């Protein structure tokens, strides 16, 4: 019974985490900001290290750290007219370096880097599951409520702003939810799977369909199928879950390339 419960919990967490990341993926892809998934998840590493040192709540500290850093990046880029992608890459490396120094200084805790890279859905507890569930509901609600604003923000943000569409507000909310999604799903999914779930589902579906609402729904379906499939594979072959899901999604991506109409 215990095994059953913990397996079911891990599977539900995997499905919910895939769903909430995948519905962001079409917008991440259209806005060409897939590097943000990578960047936020690496910055989160420093947040986790700070939480470890201070003994504060890991997720809240990490989320605040990532959001504050995102605003600092935005401000610095604007203030000094820097290329934003460069500033992001600088802060990505610095966050990692900062985290490694902090962890090396805190001798009391042995940090397992591989669990951070690939996550471990089997370690998800009841409270993690509730948080992942809330995140999935928030993500779904956000996409449903602000679909049109996100659509036009992705088409051309400057023109959308000129046409008095509230893109600044929606963009801030988008980035905060993206950061929250990454931080909340990091334990279950790890950096690699989080980054993959933010780009692979939409990249695959866009090869087959160009109607955005359909792309959003199918991206979620594909990510959930990959989560269930990856979960089963990892169980049967005794390989890590996160890595299995990524490989399965990559397989779907290759298949979609083969099926893609030449344009």
């Amino acid at each position: 019974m215990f095994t059953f419960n913990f397996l079911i919990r891990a599977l539900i967490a995997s499905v919910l985490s895939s769903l909430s990341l995948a519905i962001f993926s079409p917008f991440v892809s259209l806005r060409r900001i897939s590097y943000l998934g990578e960047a936020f998840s690496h910055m989160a590493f420093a947040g986790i290290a700070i939480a470890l040192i201070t003994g504060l709540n890991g997720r809240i500290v990490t989320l605040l750290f990532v959001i504050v850093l995102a605003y600092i990046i935005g401000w610095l880029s604007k203030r000094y007219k820097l290329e934003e992608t460069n500033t992001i890459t600088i802060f990505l490396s610095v966050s990692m370096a900062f985290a490694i120094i902090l962890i090396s200084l805190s001798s009391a805790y042995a940090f397992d880097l591989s669990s951070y890279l690939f996550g471990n859905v089997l370690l998800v507890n009841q409270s993690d599951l509730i948080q992942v569930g809330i995140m999935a509901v928030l993500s779904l609600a956000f996409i449903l409520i602000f679909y049109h604003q996100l659509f036009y923000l992705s088409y051309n943000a400057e023109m959308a702003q000129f046409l008095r569409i509230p893109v600044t507000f929606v963009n801030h909310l988008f980035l905060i939810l993206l950061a929250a999604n990454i931080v909340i799903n990091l334990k279950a999914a790890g950096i690699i799977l989080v980054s993959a779930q933010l780009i692979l589902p939409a990249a695959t579906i866009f090869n087959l369909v160009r109607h955005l609402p359909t792309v959003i729904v199918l991206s979620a379906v594909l990510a959930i199928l990959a989560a269930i499939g990856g979960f089963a594979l990892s169980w049967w072959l005794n390989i890590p879950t996160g890595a299995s899901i990524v490989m399965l999604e990559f397989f779907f991506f290759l298949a979609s390339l083969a099926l893609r109409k030449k344009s």
Partner: protein
Amino acid sequence: MISISELNHRIGDHAILQDINLDIAEGEFAAIIGPNGAGKSTLIKLILGILPLQEGRIEIDGEPHLSWLKHNPMGYLPQDEKFDRRFPATAKDIVLMGLAAELKPAQRFSTSQKERAREAMERTGCWQQARKPIGALSGGEMQRVLLARAIVGGSKYLFLDEPEASVDQTGVKNFFVLLKELNQQGHTIITISHDLHTLTSFCSFLICLNKTLHCHDKTELINAETIHDFFGETTKIVHKSY
């Protein structure tokens, strides 16, 4: 009425616009001409609130322009709208963008809004393309779609930044015929253009800009060659009989 007074604009030490005083009355078909770097786009971007005003005053219908723009739709067709040709939008989606500010969170476009989009597309002659993906539209078709987006919100002003840039010569003529119709239907039109021949046939008001405002008078009073001599080769002259 659009009223500009004592406007100056600079980028770093470089003056872009100097001492601009200009009134554009309702119902005009005004054209802004001038060589490259004359500040034409800067001037309309200042009026439209896209660039921050550094010095001077801009009023629309007697109200400071930024506060007017906050609660009124404004028609604008940019020179070179940046978009990904593979972006999953149809022509109609782009026209509806002009009405998206009216949507509350979680709201979808209503039947009457879709009807307004259809009407705008019919007026600009692109309803046939409504369901086409934007990547499948020609330059001229996209211009008409963007024009439909500019008028769909009901703005009485319509700003265009070199609308002829992505259209062939016949397309330009047809496009200006369309603009004239919109003008006759009550839109005040302010367009940047290089094509003096087309302009002299359609415009009621010519704004010659080269950092400073050189003349603004009825088109028929201006000899195209004079303008050509003044502004140089960048202004395109096509001979016509006056």
